[in-house]
């Protein structure tokens, strides 16, 4: 039943078509406590976010800054594993209707087995994947057919240094959204955007890509959310949200979301 419904519903597409700027939240599965994954998802849905990225923790997250490194280490210490996460998400679609994207590094997926991983994703109702260290070329050559067979949408990153030709290739290969990394940095490193960043958001928006753009890295509050979504469809908050969880636990979620998008 569930699989069938999942195949029919393009949750990501529906969220992207909604009016107004899209707010997506990233958090590390199993953080602050192992069994917090589902309660965090519920809290985020209750507070009106549009999309959620669930972070699969990895021992060596080389694209992440200190905040996500630390939450990943803590989650692993709590006992989080890929198997455990799929267990936690087994019945997630009975209560969470937001688009869910798994974000993680490729090695844990490889160890789980790429096809087995995709099969599990479909089974629990995951809509898409972000695997930053699975590059476009290797995806196209070796894995695209598998991900597509299970109806998973693959999201690719672009940066201010990504050439126009490469952005167009990525746009052709994707059918969800383009993850626009705001500045050359690891996650969480920025304090507001300079005019060059806004120029880049504008430049990409004027390329008339088929995929909407969602800005990530460096968005932490209403101001940066506003800047990012002036030219892009939406924005993703990760490190700033994790900091809230660290400081206030799940009870801080509501006021954090309201502070970003009153």
């Amino acid at each position, binding site marked *: 039943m569930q699989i069938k419904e999942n195949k029919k519903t393009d949750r990501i597409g529906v969220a992207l078509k909604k009016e107004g700027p899209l707010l997506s939240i990233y958090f590390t599965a199993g953080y602050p406590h192992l069994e917090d994954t589902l309660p965090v998802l519920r809290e985020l849905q209750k507070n009106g976010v549009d999309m959620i990225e669930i972070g699969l923790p*990895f*021992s*060596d*997250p*080389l*694209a992440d*800054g*200190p905040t996500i*490194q630390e939450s990943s*280490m803590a989650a*692993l210490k709590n006992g989080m*594993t*890929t*198997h455990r996460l799929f267990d936690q998400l087994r019945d997630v679609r009975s209560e969470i209707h937001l688009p869910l994207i798994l974000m993680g*590094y*490729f*090695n*844990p*997926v*490889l*160890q*789980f087995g790429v096809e087995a991983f995709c099969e599990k994703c479909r089974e629990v109702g995951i809509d898409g994947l972000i695997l*930053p*260290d*699975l*590059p*476009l*070329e*290797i995806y196209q050559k070796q894995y695209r057919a598998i991900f597509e067979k299970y109806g998973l949408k693959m999201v*690719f*990153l*672009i*940066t201010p*240094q*990504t*050439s126009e030709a*490469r952005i167009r290739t990525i746009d052709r290969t994707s059918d969800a959204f383009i993850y626009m*990394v705001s500045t*050359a*940095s*690891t996650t969480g*490193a920025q304090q507001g955007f300079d005019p060059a960043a806004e120029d880049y958001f504008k430049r990409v928006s004027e390329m008339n890509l088929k995929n909407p753009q969602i800005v990530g890295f460096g968005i932490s509050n209403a101001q940066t959310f506003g800047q990012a979504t002036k030219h892009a469809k939406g924005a993703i908050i990760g490190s700033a949200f994790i900091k809230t969880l660290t400081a206030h636990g799940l009870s801080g979620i509501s006021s954090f979301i309201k502070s970003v998008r009153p």
Partner: protein
Amino acid sequence: MENYHADSDGFYGEFGGAFIPEMLYPNVDELKSRYVEIMESPEFQKEFHQLLREYVGRPTPLYFARRLSEKYGARIYLKREDLCHTGAHKVNNTIGQILMARKLGKKRIIAETGAGQHGVATATVCALMGLPCIVYMGEVDIARQAPNVARMKLLGAEVRPARSGSRTLKDATNEAIRDWINNPEDTHYIIGSVVGPHPYPDMVARFQAVISEEIQKQLLEKEGRDAPDYVIACVGGGSNAAGAYYHYLDRPEVGIIAVEAAGKGISTGESAATSALGTVGIIHGSKTLLMQTTDGQITEPYSISAGLDYPGIGPMHAHLFTSGRGEFHSVTDQQAMEAGKELAALEGIIPAIETAHAFAVLKQRTFNPEDILVFNLSGRGDKDLQTYIEHFNL
């Protein structure tokens, strides 16, 4: 015939490639599209070899080890990389990469280091070229390798502690990669071994290939043939081994022997013998053999030798292992220390503890009396004096 070199995408069989986030793509792609052309240009070759000759002190001797040969009943030669400036083969690569960085117009150099040998070799060439140098080193390693930290500082480098994860080489490498992500325009990352995303394993192997190139010439003079029966080296990431094997990879008559660090023993949980304990996965942008949990989390290796204390091996070596082209051994801390002591007593050469691992293979297998063996004596033991003192109560 099987090919043991990297293909155009940096794959050695199933191993290698560039599993990197998009943030690294422009830098890695620039390097990938230009490194061969730059390296092969006459101008680059001239400058590279001039520096190797006049600054590093190459060619390093190929020395016939008479007493060691008598003891083990084979014709044993030592390739004296320990006589290179800074005390190890590492500088062959840093000389090459600093020239590469200059050709690419980079103004800032970053590197990772474990024991500090690659950090010192990088700081040295940065001083030589007047470029700012930042070396990432695990907080734990900084504490246990104080003399090399001081050397780097004296050479003008900034040593930045890696405080994430287990705070050793693996984490120092993560931090260097993060630095590169944050500085995409002006920075070149000098990786110290045949690891990391393509083109690094191939580029570093090509710079280190000066070792086997010299062995060919020197052996021809001494033995009337350019290839030994066996070439033997220790493998952590595997840069000295890659350099010693390079010109013999596609010559099946030459046996390739790799020696890894078993630490306290393969099955003790405190080991760095990746070929024995590793499985296929991705570490630092390369698909290779690495030590990890079934969940895909990378585990911490252990060896008495900080230079072999890495949870992966270069993709070239992973391919040599799985294809059967290379013969892999592992040697415990104790066996390596004994082998180092023996080399000192028989030949008057105190090897680095990394290098000492290679010599312990003489007790693990037999050779024919007419076999010609070349050991790559990759580094000298000055840096390890404290470990020798503690181990043997000297």
